[in-house]
Structures are given as C-alpha cells and as structure tokens.
C-alpha cells in the first residue's frame, strides 16, 4: 500500500484521540494576546519610525547644533528638515497601507508577500535615513569649512604649513569613520532582529517561489 494511504487511513480514525478543548477554554484563549510575527513586525516598525524621528529631535538640541544655528545655514537646513518630514509621512503612509493589507485569510503566498512588502517599506525608510544622514554630514562639513571661524583658522594654519590636503583628509576620514561605526552597529541590530524574526518566513517563501520556478 502507498505510504500516504496508510497514513490517511489512520488520520481519519484519530479524531477521537485529541484532547477536547472546551468552550470555556476557547473563551479564555481568545482573551490572550497573540505572539505572531506580524505583531512584532508592527511594534518594531513603530519603534524604528520613532527612533529616527526622535534622533533628529535629539540632535537638534545638542550644543553642536546650537553652535551650528548661529551660522548662516538656514538656506540648506530648512529644506533638508522639510524634506525629511515629508518623506517620513510618505513612508509611514505606505507602511500603514501595506500593514492593513496583511490578512490571515489570504493564500499562504500572498500573505507572505504582503508581510515582506510591509517590511520592505520600513527597510527603505531606514536606508533613506542612512543616506540622509551621510548627506547631512557632508552638508554640515561643507558649512563648517565654509563658515566656522575656528575651523577656517585651522585650515589656514595648515595651508601655511603646506598640509592643507592632509588636514581635509583627516577631518573627512574621522567623520566617515564615526558614521561607519554607527551604520555598522545599526546593521548588526537589524541582522539580529529580522534574522530571527523572518528566518522562517523567508525560508518558506523561497520554497514556494522555487516551486514556481521549477515547472
């Protein structure tokens, strides 16, 4: 006999073997909280949006930023800030729209795709922020070199010694190094969180995709 046929025979007979869950127990169960990955993705995504928004507020209040405010930099900083908020709103809208689309009654493949799409929105937002951070750092660096009197004096001193190239290179390398460490730590956390959370989903999604490719 075919192996699965034997299993099927037993499968139908085993209905009485399961412990019966009473109506009372079901009432209790539906009061409990879900621990599905969708819930975790939602919470983590909100935290990501909050983190990036919070970070920009926090940076505005630092001494450096206040020192920076004294300089003539509004022509660059105001558009950058406005663009930042518009893009935050855009991503948040996309995220919310995609999140609402996740439905457990869809087919397995569509459900997985919708979850992955929601994730991708947040991922793009984070990538945007990283790029934004690098661009902002460059703008700030440019303004500093252009307008910060202390820095200009240092540059001139370096120029007098014939080391102006070295001086620029050092400053830029330090800023780039700090940024790289920051980005590295962030990427590590992402790898940790989503690696654990989405490993199963990704594996199963690949399996379904593979089915499609093979025939």
């Amino acid at each position, binding site marked *: 006999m075919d192996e*699965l046929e034997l*299993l099927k025979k037993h499968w139908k007979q085993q209905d009485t073997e399961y412990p*019966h869950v009473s109506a009372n127990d079901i009432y209790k169960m*539906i009061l409990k909280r879900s621990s599905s990955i969708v819930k975790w993705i939602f919470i983590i995504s909100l935290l990501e949006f909050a983190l990036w928004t919070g970070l920009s507020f926090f940076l505005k209040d630092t001494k450096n930023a206040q020192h920076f405010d004294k300089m003539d930099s509004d022509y660059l900083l105001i558009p950058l800030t406005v663009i930042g908020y518009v893009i935050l709103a855009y991503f948040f809208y996309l995220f919310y729209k995609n999140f609402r689309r996740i439905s457990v009654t869809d087919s*397995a493949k569509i459900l997985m795709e919708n*979850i992955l799409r929601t994730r991708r929105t947040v991922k793009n937002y984070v990538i945007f922020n990283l790029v934004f951070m690098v661009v902002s750092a460059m703008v700030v660096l440019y303004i500093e070199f252009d307008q910060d009197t202390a820095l200009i004096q240092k540059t001139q001193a370096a120029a007098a010694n014939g080391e102006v190239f070295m001086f620029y290179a050092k400053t830029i390398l330090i800023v780039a190094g700090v940024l790289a460490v920051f980005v590295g730590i962030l990427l590590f956390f992402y790898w940790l969180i989503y690696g654990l959370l989405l490993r199963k989903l990704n594996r199963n999604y690949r399996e379904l995709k593979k*089915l499609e490719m093979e025939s």
Partner: protein
Amino acid sequence: MDKELEHSFVALLEEHQNIVHKVCRLYTNHREAHNDLFQEITIQLWKAYPKFRGDAKFSTWMYRVGLNTAITLYRKSKRTVNTYELETFQFKIKAEEYDDTEEQQLKLLYQAVHQLNDIEKALVFLYLEEKDYREISETLGISEVNARVKMNRIKNKLKTILNP
C-alpha cells in the same frame, strides 16, 4: 452584538477543533508546543472571524487560517522540547486496531512527515484531509500543476526517507 459573535465563534470552533489539532500535530512535536500553536491559531481565527462571511464553509476557512498561522505567523515557543511526550502523545495508536508491523510503519511514517519542510507538510495535510488540487493550490497560492508535481515529489521523498 459582540457577545453574539463570540458565542457563535466559540461554538463553531469547539465543533471543528480537530482541524486545528491536526495542524498542530503536523507542525509540532511535543504537547506544550501543540497547545501553544493551538492557542495562536485560535487567536488568529478569532481576529479574522468578524470578516468571515459565511460564503465559504467554516472548516475551509479554518484550513487557511490554521496553515497560515503554522507556516508564517507562528513563532516557535521557547519551551524546551520534551521528547518523552512525543512517544506517548503522537503515537497513541490503539493496539487492537493495528498489528505490530502496521503500528511500527505508522510510527515511522509520522517521523518521516515531521522531517518534511513547512510547505511540504501543508501539502501533506491538505492531501490527508482529502482536499482536491484546486483547493490545495488556492490555499497555498501556487498553481494546480505545481501542487500536483510537488505532491508526487513529496511521495517520493517520503519513500526515500522510509527506505534509505
């Protein structure tokens, strides 16, 4: 109104709960994980219930939610695996109905099915529930042809696992 919804849901689930048990049986291998997954599927069913229109059969609708929860939404419980219970719980086969060889064979079969991946288990589950390929393909979101091809491959895979 909410109370009414709750009552009708609980009554329906109590009646059809074996579907959930069967999903849990394929996707977990100890009692605590079984109960954990059972609970998560119940929560997901309840959350989706207000949108259940009744144009599909409740049981058909349950297959989807149950499998989606097991394949995609559920995060494995962190509790330790107790292999003892695997023996007593999974293979509670009534001795008088089966002879020894058949019992042994079934035991090996269940072990083989547990070695399949999540998607393969879903196909086996729907096959054991005697769903046709149309329903299998709609539940998983793959074409009917692919479902057939995959099912044949799974049968061969099980043969290889059982007769190495």
